[in-house]
């Protein structure tokens, strides 16, 4: 299984702060497994993705396997 960590507003959109999805997952597979509103938000370039704590420069390169952690990160808040 793969743990999906949802931060900030994306947790509201996903209805939870963590989800669990079946491995393996690539970027299109991840979006297909999420609610459509969530998948759409993820394509927004301001929303970033981290795999096991490392930011991905290109989301399309996501390749997650069993016991990996994917974090979905909206822009950080202003001060």
């Amino acid at each position, binding site marked *: 299984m793969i743990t999906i*960590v949802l*931060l*900030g*507003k994306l*947790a*509201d959109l996903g209805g939870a702060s963590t989800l669990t999805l079946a491995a393996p997952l690539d970027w299109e597979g991840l979006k297909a497994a999420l609610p459509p509103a969530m998948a759409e938000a993820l394509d927004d370039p301001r929303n970033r993705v*981290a795999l*096991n*704590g490392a*930011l991905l420069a290109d989301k399309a390169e996501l390749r997650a396997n069993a016991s990996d*952690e994917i*974090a979905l*990160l*909206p*822009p*950080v*808040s*202003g*001060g």
Partner: protein
Amino acid sequence: MRDIRLLTQMFIPGTLIGPFTQANPGLGGVCTFVGEVRHDAKEHGGVEALELSHYEPLTLPGMHELADRAFDRFTLMGLLMVHRIGVLRPGEPIVCVSAAALHRRDAIDAVDFCMDHLKSAAWFWKREKRADGWHWIEPRADDTRDLARWQS
């Protein structure tokens, strides 16, 4: 002396600054900035609480990288950078950055630099509780302007 921390509980800045100053003997000056949760966020009415969430694998490393950049850029003896996470009430301190240096310009500029970069370098998401419920805080245009001050 370098002290970078995320705190889950209310803190009193003076209890951090005193020991930090003592830990940098021979310093010429210490500059400290403490930010508190405001009661009133702009035009939105009273704030009852502020919640900060973070993503552990990115947030603390982001603060350490920012500290590295401050040490590279300024001549510092010590740097303290402490940020609250969790639920805070108005009036509680949310961030404390303190820099010790031989010369005051380095100490003041390092604090200014860290405060301008903390929000972009560190991963925090904030939401405010007002009378009508919780509201996420969006990025501000000011933040980009603050960062532009340090391009050179």
